[in-house]
């Protein structure tokens, strides 16, 4: 149970961070396209609970949860959204280019599927250099439509590279449902299996399922048997990019929305945790502590200076 409390705390932390971002986004101070993970946090928390700082993760445009769950510095994340010198990339990359090398979160990128090959390259380096660590590639269902996904998984399978592919299938790419993008009956899991990747599909909102499947797959990957993929079915609560709810646009069936909101990962964990003695007090404490941390991160960001445009000339080339 204490494990579950910690998982809950992690999940709630990401949720509260992103809700705070959403709340303040319209102030026009976080001036960069921002994709919230609200509703999908259990995937990142579940997977990361089985990783060490040595393991290296890459992600996509929707990376806040992956970054935070991996241990990425909260202050740097918020400062990056504000475009401040103290941000992950000192304001060069914004929300879609997060990085915290200290905890093995290498990078997220803004082009769909184009960080998948990078993660595979990381795994190639690990294999050639005989490292014990592994690589993780996070991406969405839309990314699996890119040739880059297919070519990368094929190569990882050929070389039996130490990498875990994590697909968050939230059924949408921006406003577009699966239908015009993938044929009826498509299973990303079975497809990956035929590519040559050990794969499991789970309810990504159920953290126990995520953890159990990840554990099984990591055993495979860490013993050098080759790559693996976990497909996590999940759902995003808010608009694709930006802070708002957008179901007034009617692009998602109402029944789906209701079903998935009822299947919210925090809600699910709470059902279990409510049995715990003293739960409401514990919960209140966690929330309070988290809100303190979060407010302090926003203060940090707001109070940090903008980088000086004179620095724009730095780092065009490495030495």
């Amino acid at each position, binding site marked *: 149970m204490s494990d579950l409390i910690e998982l809950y705390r992690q999940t709630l932390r990401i949720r509260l961070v992103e809700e705070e971002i959403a709340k303040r986004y319209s102030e026009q101070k976080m001036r*960069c396209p921002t994709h919230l993970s609200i509703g999908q946090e259990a995937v990142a928390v579940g997977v990361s609970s089985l990783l060490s700082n040595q393991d290296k993760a890459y992600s996509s445009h929707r990376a806040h949860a992956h970054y935070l769950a991996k241990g990425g510095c909260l202050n740097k994340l918020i400062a990056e959204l504000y*475009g401040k*010198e103290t941000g992950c990339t*000192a*304001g060069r990359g914004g929300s879609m280019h997060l990085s915290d090398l200290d905890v093995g979160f290498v990078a997220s990128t803004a082009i769909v599927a184009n960080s998948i090959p990078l993660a595979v390259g990381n795994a190639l380096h690990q294999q050639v250099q005989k490292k014990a660590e592994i690589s993780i590639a996070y991406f969405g269902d839309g990314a699996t*439509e890119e040739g880059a996904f297919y070519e990368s998984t094929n190569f990882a399978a050929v070389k039996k590279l130490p990498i875990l592919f994590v697909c968050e299938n939230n059924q949408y790419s921006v*406003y577009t449902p699966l239908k015009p993008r993938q044929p009826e009956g498509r299973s990303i899991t079975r497809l990956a299996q035929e590519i040559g990747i050990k794969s499991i599909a789970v309810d990504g909102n159920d953290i126990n399922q995520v953890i159990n499947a990840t554990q099984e797959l990591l055993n495979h990957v860490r013993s050098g048997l080759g790559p693996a993929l976990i497909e996590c079915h999940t759902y995003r609560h808010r608009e694709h990019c930006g802070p708002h709810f957008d179901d007034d646009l009617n692009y998602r069936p109402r029944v789906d929305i209701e079903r998935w909101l009822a299947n919210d990962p925090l809600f699910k964990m709470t059902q279990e945790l409510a049995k715990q003695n003293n739960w409401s007090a514990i919960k209140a404490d966690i929330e309070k502590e988290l809100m303190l941390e979060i407010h302090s991160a926003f203060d940090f960001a707001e109070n940090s200076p903008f980088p000086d445009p004179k620095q*724009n000339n730095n780092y065009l080339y490495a030495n």
Partner: protein
Amino acid sequence: MPTNTNFAEQINLAQHQAMRDDPSMISMGLGIDDPKGIFNTTTGLAEAFGEERVFDTPTSENAMTGVGIGAAIAGSRVLMTHQRVDFFLLAMDQLVNNAAKWHYMFNGTMSVPLTIRLIIGRGWGQGPTHQQSLQSWFTHIPGLKVVVPSLTDNVGQLLYNAIMDNNPTIFLEHRWLHNQQANEDICKPLKQKPSSIRKHISGDDITIISNSYMLLESLKAAEILKFMGVSCEVLEISEPSNTQLTDVYDSVNKTGSVLVTDISHSHYSVASELITSITENCFSQLKVAPIRLGLPNYPEPTSFGLTKGFYNEADDIVIAVANVFNKNHVKSSPLTKHDVPGDWFKGPF
């Protein structure tokens, strides 16, 4: 009383008209039938022409470009739309090895009536991979046509003609222009051939050549320079792939000096090409070295703090020109934030 229209609406109109005029035309792209309709430029198309002819696609830029080319070769007229130039980098093989060369390579037996709309981002945190404008790449490739609209009055005409042209055409649309207002009655008839070079202001002292968003800044700059006693001739080149530059040479031969603005990196750019062509053709008339104003040689950073001064504005043009004529100009503070085209833009894209 003339009705108001804007750049996005004219783009929308041109597509409606083309779909009506050619029943073999199809239109595809990520999100073209979604509730936002690609910044309202594709709104209503799917409803009007059906989902067989207007449809969303998988996130597969490379193959989908090939699909567009294949359909065009087969006899469909094809329009494809990408929300950013940057995403289209995945499709260079199809564009360059197939689309650009097809008509030539098969000795004129087939053609590729394909237009690809690419939207160029800028500011408000678009950052390194959501703001590139690669017109010099596209124009380097024989067989492609490249169209870069600037003003609401002829953007519809340019797009309509690009669609109806039987060659692969890259249509580079700047996000900051979408809200540009105009009266409907100044808009050029869609079905007329557009002129690829337009003179917007006549002048004697210097020729300023621009396109896309930089044309707006150039026009502003010319106004300011007029008050400073410098008479600018402002030319718009909307089709950089057109090698007929007589109008440009005539202007430079008259003024004896030229400044070329560019929306992309200066280095190896449209500006480089134009200045070289001008130097080759007007050498003896040039009084001073041609000037180019483009982006510096590093990617666009994301932060509001870092993008200050990254883009050239009217003031930068004024300063560069004033310098030639030994005058002085001091940069003024912008009225709106430097990273938005106006108050209408609230992000995120």
